[in-house]
């Protein structure tokens, strides 16, 4: 009766009262490639988690019709049996196991006694890889033998091995080089012949344009529309993705901008696992005293990698040339960075920001503890007076500095982490996603704080994937895409989200 393989109807998903998805519709025909587009945090991943029952039936409202029947799956096993298979952005392969063992992980071919039948598995795995035109891969070798794009293809083979009728690819090319990307795109096109449908999630709109039959756009959890690619252009998709008006959420204050303080030349970071892939490719920029430089770019553009490299924290091959106040400095460890007056508020607060078992006060003084010590003995009186001052200055809402830092809300934890990184009196402050996981009110306070710091003459580098935030706060915006600089704009009021997004999505070297 229905000519759709999948129909998702008015899907609503709430997280503790906040609507992450608010009435999303998505339709997929058999063998069709549907592009799913939206800004970071628009709800793409949440929608796919609803579809694959990571969020089981009952935790959301709406309806999923699969092959004409309602699908009320509570487990991922159930959706996989139905033929819905998701390939996550992060690869889920066990490096020590062979390609074939990975492909059959969890569904091993074995005799009744539980003894693995390697011949059968290897034969089937070879056939799957051959279907993907990857017959040169030796399925008996461990996965660690291969790298980059081949891993992504092994993941897809693993998904197809589950008899997928619908394959969900979440940013499959984010870790791939150009030629590997081309192979992958060919492969997705080839799925059509085998009547396998695909939901293709990507920030790279040229890929969407190249392989998708229809495109669905969501924004802030709202369904914007689904249309055939033939009726769309990349510009139209960008407009649908951005759409919203910029409200006065940003306490802009005039501040004086001084001399160049932070001069970064030729940052290059290689992927630690696949060194052929450059996560950051020869990025240079300068920041002046009191200037707020916003670094915009989509997820995977290389912002966090760059921030890590500037702070002596990048865990892979990289090179960087940093000048502070005109003098070249060596930054090999975070300790070097802090001692030179470069501080960073990291993106992942839980993993890199807070020390959970220490109190609020002890977290705040972590970076400057020796300052309060004589012969190694801490003068707690002096320490507490500074802590009290910081808690007031940052308006951290707490009953006592002795409480566990985990007792604070996300916004107040973030303020404590910022306070910690301000105590060393930095010349340069790198803020990586400073308002992630912070509610609206606390966001406003953090913005005010950033302006206060700029007024004090600190050079500020703010990485953010929220374009309104970048536009609302920055004096200048550096746009990064695929690891390279794709735009350097003065934020003089004429800069728009569309301009930034267009720059982020436009390959510079191809255009030339």
């Amino acid at each position, binding site marked *: 009766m229905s000519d759709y393989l999948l129909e998702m109807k008015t899907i609503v998903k709430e997280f503790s009262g906040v609507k992450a998805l608010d009435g999303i519709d998505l339709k997929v025909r058999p063998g069709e490639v549907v592009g799913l587009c939206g800004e970071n945090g628009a709800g793409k991943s949440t929608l796919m988690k609803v579809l694959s029952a990571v969020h089981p039936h009952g935790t959301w409202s709406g309806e999923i019709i699969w092959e004409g029947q309602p699908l009320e799956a509570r487990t991922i096993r159930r959706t996989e049996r139905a033929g819905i298979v998701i390939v996550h952005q992060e690869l889920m392969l066990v490096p020590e196991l062979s390609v074939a063992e990975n492909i059959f992980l969890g569904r091993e071919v074995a005799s009744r006694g539980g003894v693995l039948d390697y011949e059968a598995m290897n034969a089937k795995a070879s056939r799957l890889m051959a279907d993907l035109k990857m017959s040169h891969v030796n399925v008996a070798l461990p996965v660690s033998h291969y790298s980059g794009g081949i891993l992504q293809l092994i993941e897809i083979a693993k998904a197809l091995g589950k008899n997928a009728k619908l394959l969900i690819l979440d940013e499959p090319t984010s870790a791939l080089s150009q030629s590997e990307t081309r192979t992958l795109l060919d492969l997705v096109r080839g799925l059509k012949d085998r009547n396998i449908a695909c939901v293709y999630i990507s920030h790279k709109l040229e890929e969407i344009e190249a392989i998708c039959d229809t495109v669905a756009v969501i924004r802030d959890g709202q369904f914007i529309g689904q249309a055939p690619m033939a009726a769309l252009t990349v510009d139209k998709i960008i407009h649908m993705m951005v759409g919203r008006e910029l409200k006065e959420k940003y306490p802009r204050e005039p501040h004086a901008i001084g001399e160049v303080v932070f001069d970064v030349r030729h940052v290059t970071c290689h992927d630690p696992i696949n060194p052929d892939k450059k996560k950051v490719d020869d990025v240079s920029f300068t920041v002046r005293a009191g200037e707020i430089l916003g670094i915009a770019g989509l997820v995977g553009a290389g912002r966090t990698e760059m921030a890590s490299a500037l702070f002596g*924290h990048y865990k892979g091959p990289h090179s960087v040339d940093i000048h502070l106040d005109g003098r070249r400095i060596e930054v090999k*460890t*975070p*300790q070097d960075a802090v001692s030179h007056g470069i501080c960073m508020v990291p993106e992942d607060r839980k*993993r890199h920001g807070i020390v959970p*078992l*220490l109190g609020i006060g002890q977290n705040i003084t972590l*970076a400057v503890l020796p300052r309060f010590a004589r012969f190694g003995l*801490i003068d707690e009186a002096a320490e*507490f007076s500074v802590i009290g001052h910081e808690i007031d200055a940052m308006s951290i809402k707490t009953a006592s500095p002795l409480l566990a830092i985990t007792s604070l809300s996300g916004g107040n934890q973030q303020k404590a982490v910022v306070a910690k990184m301000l105590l060393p009196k930095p010349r340069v402050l790198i803020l990586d996603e400073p308002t992630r996981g912070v509610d609206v009110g606390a966001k406003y306070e953090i913005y005010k704080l950033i302006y206060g710091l700029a007024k004090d003459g600190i050079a500020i580098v703010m990485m953010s994937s929220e374009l309104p935030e970048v536009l609302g706060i920055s004096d200048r915006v550096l746009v990064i895409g695929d690891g390279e600089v794709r735009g350097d704009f003065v934020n003089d009021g004429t800069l728009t989200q569309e301009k930034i997004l267009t720059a982020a999505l436009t390959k510079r070297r191809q255009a030339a």
Partner: protein
Amino acid sequence: MSTGGMQSFATIFSRYKILSLLFVIAVIWLLFGWLTDGYFLTPRNFSNLLRQMAITGMLAAGMVFVIISGEIDLSVGSLLGLLGGVAAILDVVYGFPVLATILTVLALGLMAGLFNGWWVAYRGVPSFMVGLAGLMAYRGVLLGITDGSTVAPVSPGLVLIGQAYLPRLAGDLLAGFVFLLVGVLIFRSRAKRRRYNLDVPPLWQDVLKLIGIGVVIAGFVIMLDEYRGIPIPVLVLGIVLGVFTLISRQTVFGRRVYSVGSNVEATRLSGVNVKVVKLAVFGLVGLMCAVAGLTTTARLAAGSVSAGNLGELDAIASCIIGGTSMRGGSGTVYGALIGALIMASLDNGMSMLGVETFWQMIVKGSILLLAVWVDIATSAKT
């Protein structure tokens, strides 16, 4: 009503882990006291018990820092044996003066600890493996340098540090001084908290705490005086307890040990040199191996090739029973020592009852498992 009472009882116990540990000790002592017709609780046995726990306690006091920092050191038993053996050889074979022997062995202990720590911090070898390697290699060195035989007789000067007792008057004066010191510290911390507008606990609570500490100190000293005074190893352990508690609570290094154990990445990103912290932690435990090794040799009046065998396991068990988390980031020195006291009490009491060794091992193993489970079960709730 009664459940409310139970709840506040439970919160007090989970807030002040020391109370529940002391409660466990009280139960064990009363039980053994009853089973041995009171003999377990005599001053003489009390003195023995403390001397027995001293060596494990010394190792545990160092080990607790290692575990708080998120690592483990399995080599301490063998290192104790080796350093004790070196002390005996220096004393017996080369006739070193006692002070020179002590200083040499302490320096060697520190160096061996730093060597272990270097592999962990700067070479990225998991501490479990470094410890296991040390466990085998240090014992091997000991067998090699002693030819597998006991080194004896140790000079009387060295024997003193293992077997002598502090004169009663000196012990009493020391106890009074410690009591005064604790009192001054408590009231100074009250004054400080008031100055910085922090919550000051009600006066009666601190007075009660002080009285409690006074009773414990007085009890200890009176019991020990009844026999022969404070044994030197117990005195050393007491000094270690005081100094290490100060290190863990009031020094930059101590704070960083907790910080590294709780979240090493966040600590590193705050500009702290976390490698040096780990290196120092292993140095500290190496130093404690030297102290424990000297004490062991002095107590036995000989260097024995089996000294410290399985000492690492007793030390780790003491830390864990005393409330140190294997996940790192939390634990106390006094907890580790109370853990050692619990272990020693079990050993001592069961031996006195003539319980066979295999039963002793089974009971100790079960207690360890139970202690960890209690820790996990209670921390999951809060």
